[in-house]
């Protein structure tokens, strides 16, 4: 039984949360890929000796649910000793999609095992058939890059050269090496700070803290859930595939617990919209975070009151060798919208209309470079406010790459980057506008797009109009060619890609008088 006072818990909370914060700062500043340093597509976390999440400094919600699975997979597959670090990206063993590489370090203080520091970062290339490793047309995991099952990248303090060699075969391998070194460096820093913190408070007190902070987060999360109305609702939504793929959810709230049952969701497909289970966990945890007070520390306790059931071999819980690269970035957005669709029926004033619901992933490259970017769009309007224009919603919040940086670093020229006027759904409150971005290719390149909401409009709410669908266009010799929502194709010097991202749904009927 723990002996910590309400004061000691708070003091130790600050001390331990600052560890992943410091790891994140180090990783962002020392990494190579714009993905990590500019777009902050990374997360860092701290786990107890029994692999319970103690603290997470996350910058991307899509990593929320994924870290615990990664650690479990590493513990199961590897013998861990002092000075080790484990690397993995296998979506079927703790990963989500291949570019997300997780590195885990167990931490000791003298003879005592303390726990783990973990970080995950999105690399801009991990091999596969196209630069950027996000092919629009991948059918199996092999098309998307190299698969790393949990293995030692550092063994007893020595870097395993064979593992590093795997990366030397990849495009822009020196960038990969730099990013991996940055990830290992962040873990070293985290381990050092972890040990220092435990020495400061003492081992007994640290063990009490593990128990107490988890229980504290759980208590406050349960209390927030209890405050919501009781409900039991079924909804469905679709992913855009050759034939629309249905996602089903029965969401139930009872007392201080929530249940998410995805029974009825369609079988996995021979394409990349399959999302390993941790992606859906992340989407659920994201919505949960939006519903509960934001000062509750993220620990294993937050997730105790939540049950998630995903049927096997479906798009939300596929089996190998299904391709998955779009699951993390696109399917995750749809799962969020599906959950919000249920919640709109019970909490209409706490929910916005549908937003762009996609990340508009674009990857351009050839043998000399890889450029990956996501594009914001319109957010949904809500009672009392217009939807925001040109912004990332829900599962991502990555920054754009400055145009001056794109044009300096890559053989690309940006010809327009502006709001897509009129794309947000009208209503008493207007949906946010999407973005128009036009990129001209100054060399022959390969282009991959993964996007959604090209056929299904983001829906308005309470009488508000739908936002406009997104569009992908190729401008070639003065001719505009309409592209699918997912493509993988060669493009020539002088051609341009025009992406128009979806607008958000409006809220309320327009003719109603808007009261201020």
């Amino acid at each position, binding site marked *: 039984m723990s002996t910590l006072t309400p004061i000691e818990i708070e003091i130790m909370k600050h001390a331990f949360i600052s560890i992943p914060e410091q790891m994140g700062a180090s990783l962002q500043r*020392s990494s190579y890929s714009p993905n990590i340093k500019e777009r902050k597509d990374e997360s860092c976390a701290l786990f107890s000796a029994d692999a319970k999440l103690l603290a997470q400094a996350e910058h991307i919600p899509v990593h929320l649910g994924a870290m615990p699975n990664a650690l479990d997979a590493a513990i199961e597959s590897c013998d861990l000793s002092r000075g080790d670090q484990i690397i993995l990206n296998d979506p079927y063993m703790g990963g989500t999609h291949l570019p997300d590489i997780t590195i885990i370090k167990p931490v000791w203080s003298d003879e005592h095992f303390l726990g783990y520091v973990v970080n995950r970062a999105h690399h801009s290339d991990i091999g596969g058939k196209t630069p950027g490793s996000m092919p629009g047309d991948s059918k199996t995991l092999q098309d998307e890059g190299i698969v790393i099952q949990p293995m030692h990248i550092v063994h007893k303090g020595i870097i395993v050269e064979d593992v590093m060699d795997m990366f030397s075969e990849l495009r822009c391998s020196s960038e990969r090496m730099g990013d991996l070194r940055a990830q290992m*460096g962040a873990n070293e820093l985290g381990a050092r700070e972890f040990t220092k913190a435990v020495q400061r408070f003492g081992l007994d007190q640290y063990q009490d803290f593990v128990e107490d902070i988890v229980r504290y987060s759980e208590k406050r999360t349960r209390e927030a859930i209890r405050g919501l109305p009781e409900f039991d609702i079924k909804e469905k939504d679709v992913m855009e595939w050759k034939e629309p793929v249905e996602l089903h959810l029965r969401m139930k709230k009872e007392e201080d617990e929530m249940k998410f049952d995805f029974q009825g969701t369609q079988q996995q497909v021979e394409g990349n919209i399959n999302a390993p289970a941790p992606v859906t966990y992340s989407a659920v945890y994201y919505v949960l975070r939006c519903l509960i007070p934001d000062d509750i520390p993220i620990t294993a306790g937050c997730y105790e009151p939540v049950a998630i059931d995903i049927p096997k071999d479906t798009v939300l819980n596929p089996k190998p060798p299904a391709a998955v690269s779009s699951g993390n970035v696109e399917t995750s957005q749809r799962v969020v919208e599906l959950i919000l669709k249920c919640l709109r029926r019970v909490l209409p004033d706490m929910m916005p209309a549908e937003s762009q619901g996609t990340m508009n992933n674009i990857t351009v490259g050839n043998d000399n470079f890889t450029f990956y970017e996501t594009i914001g769009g319109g957010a949904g309007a809500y009672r009392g406010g217009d939807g925001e224009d040109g912004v990332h919603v829900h599962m991502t919040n990555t920054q754009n790459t400055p145009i*001056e940086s794109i044009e300096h670093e890559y053989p690309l020229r940006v010809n327009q980057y502006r709001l897509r006027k009129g794309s947000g759904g009208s209503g008493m409150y207007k949906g946010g506008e999407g973005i128009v971005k036009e990129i001209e290719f100054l060399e022959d390149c390969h282009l991959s797009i993964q996007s959604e909401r090209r056929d299904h409009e983001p829906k308005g709410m309470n009488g508000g109009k739908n936002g406009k669908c997104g569009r992908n266009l190729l401008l070639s010799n003065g001719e505009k060619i309409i592209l699918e929502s997912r493509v993988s194709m060669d493009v020539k010097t002088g051609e341009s890609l025009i992406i128009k991202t979806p607008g958000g749904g409006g809220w309320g009927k327009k003719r109603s008088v808007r009261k201020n």
Partner: protein
Amino acid sequence: MVFYYYDINITKLVQQLFYTLVRYKPMVLAVDVGGTFTDFILIEDGITCYKLPSTPDDPSRSVIEGIEGKDITGDIFHGTTIATNAFLEGKGADTAFITNRGFEDILFIGRQTRPKLYDLFVKKDKPPVSSGHSYGILGRIGSNGDIIQELNQKELNVLADELKKKDLCAAVCLFHSYKNPLHEKRVGNILKQNDIPHSLSCDVTGEYREYERGMTTLIDAYLKPTVKDYFDELSSSLPKTPLIMKSNGGLDEAGRVEPVDTFLSGPAGGAAGGRFIAKHTGIKNLVTFDMGGTSADMCSIVDGEITWKDQGRIGSFQVDLESSAREESGESQDFPVQSEMVDIVTVGAGGGSIAMKDSGGVLRVGPQSAGADPGPVCYGKGGQQPTITDALLCAGYIDPDYFLGGKFDLDTEKAQGKLEELADALGMALDETINGIYRIANSTMSRSMKKITVEKGLDPDDFSILAFGGAGPLHAASLADELGITQVIIPPMPGVFSAFGMMTGDLIRDDSRTYFTELTNKKELEEVIQEIAPHHEGWEEEVILGLRYKGQSYHLNLTYTGNISDIRSRFHKKHMDMYGFSRDGEIIEVVKVHVKSKKSAGVEILPREYEDVEHPEDRRCLFKEGLLPTSVYYRKGLRGNEKGDGPAVIEDTNSTILVPPNWKWRVDEDGLLYIEKEVKK
């Protein structure tokens, strides 16, 4: 031994006269405008400190009033919030934004991110320009500086007419102007011919990243008229053009200071003072810790120099530790500014931070603050929730009869009543609760202090804390304990030390530009340096290169001295220190060339107060270890080389210094107070 005595005249109410042995000629004055008070320090025959209420409706009034009748023969040093306040209150000029066609919305899109991660009702901050006043013009320059498309003269004439008709100022930001400013200059000429006040991005900041540069240029144009009027008013009303404390920790003449260079004027004074103390004591690694009623500012001084960054922010500087972004407080304003700024972290912890039990049963301190009104419970102005100040009062650290020099009555009983309620709710003893509030406040601040040390690759063990502000010296030693720091220094006049710091600054001008080349291209580099260096007569110049491994997008700043192989090995080492690895074979790329020009300007004295007074009686104060008998001193009554053991409370004017148990205190010959802990080996 040299004594400087000073005369304290607070709000012209309390007057204490001391004598002086040494004269400082000519007469100099520092004036630091704060939200509530304007602080003055006058050095002539000794040192006089006084405060006047600030006059937010016309900020120059309190400054001029406080200086009127003083025969200032030397310099006037000035810390100002004019630009910050005009920006936050939306009192700038109506400004048009001119950029390349197709990119009219870049300021509205920003970096396409939302300020709060977990927020279903997304709202970005709105820049101070209406979308109808954002213009895209023909013409395009490529990343290598080549002209891809020419400007259209006719279009520019039409635009100038429209701006004139609408009576707008203009901010111009065209792509790659850091590489080739030709188009911006030509647009500037047309605006000039039409008498349209304007700012060009190549003049305001020569750095890449169109959103950040555009925003900086917009803010500059938007604030320029207000700031210029203010400086003009001061220059014509004061006996001498004031030297303005800039965000970079340096001073410059009012007429030469751009609005975007002043956003951290006040806190930079504290950092400049830190640098002075580092120089004076030879203790070269310091963290300055300035804690007041609502927030605490921290900045590190490394190897005797203030740490600075190439880009800061205007708006909410506060670090919100609890949510992933800052708290929402109505219309928020938070934008990047490409201007050299001292690297300050501000945390929302001050004497007014409220202590409460949260729904999970845990004691929390801040970020909610009772501010100055109603303020802590003990102010008796209606505050109902106990604050840090209430806890420190009940712990016995603050003397209710000596708070702010005794001008202010504190109600200990009332504060204790509220703290008892809180203790009951927590199911804890009163003493434990009071001490808990103090310790939690310190743990919050230590988390922030790590942001400027550990997160920057610095080890707190190598640092001393320099504590000032009303509340800084009360928390510093305990905060040091959390970080493993064993020495705290309390400067003279801790309550107005930021104003004093301004007097110690150098004149500093920064000229910089984004320039991409490999480090080995020495000849090219030298040419660019010559182009950028202003070569002011009698100024020293330091060349700083922004360097990175080719492919990285953040750079490290390194002084350009020695040969290229020297620089290379220093870069590898610095990278290793900060990030834990280096890549020895890799190409090193220059991304920024920066010339820092310096000229010394400030005073070089350390004020010292001494009076033969009787120290107060000992009292009992509450610590982690329990209630302990604690010695109490007046700082002004401490002589050089005096020392003692903690626990002790040392009363200073406008500040209280706490020496915890197991810490010792000593005064050096110059009157600096050290609080130190013996390290167990």
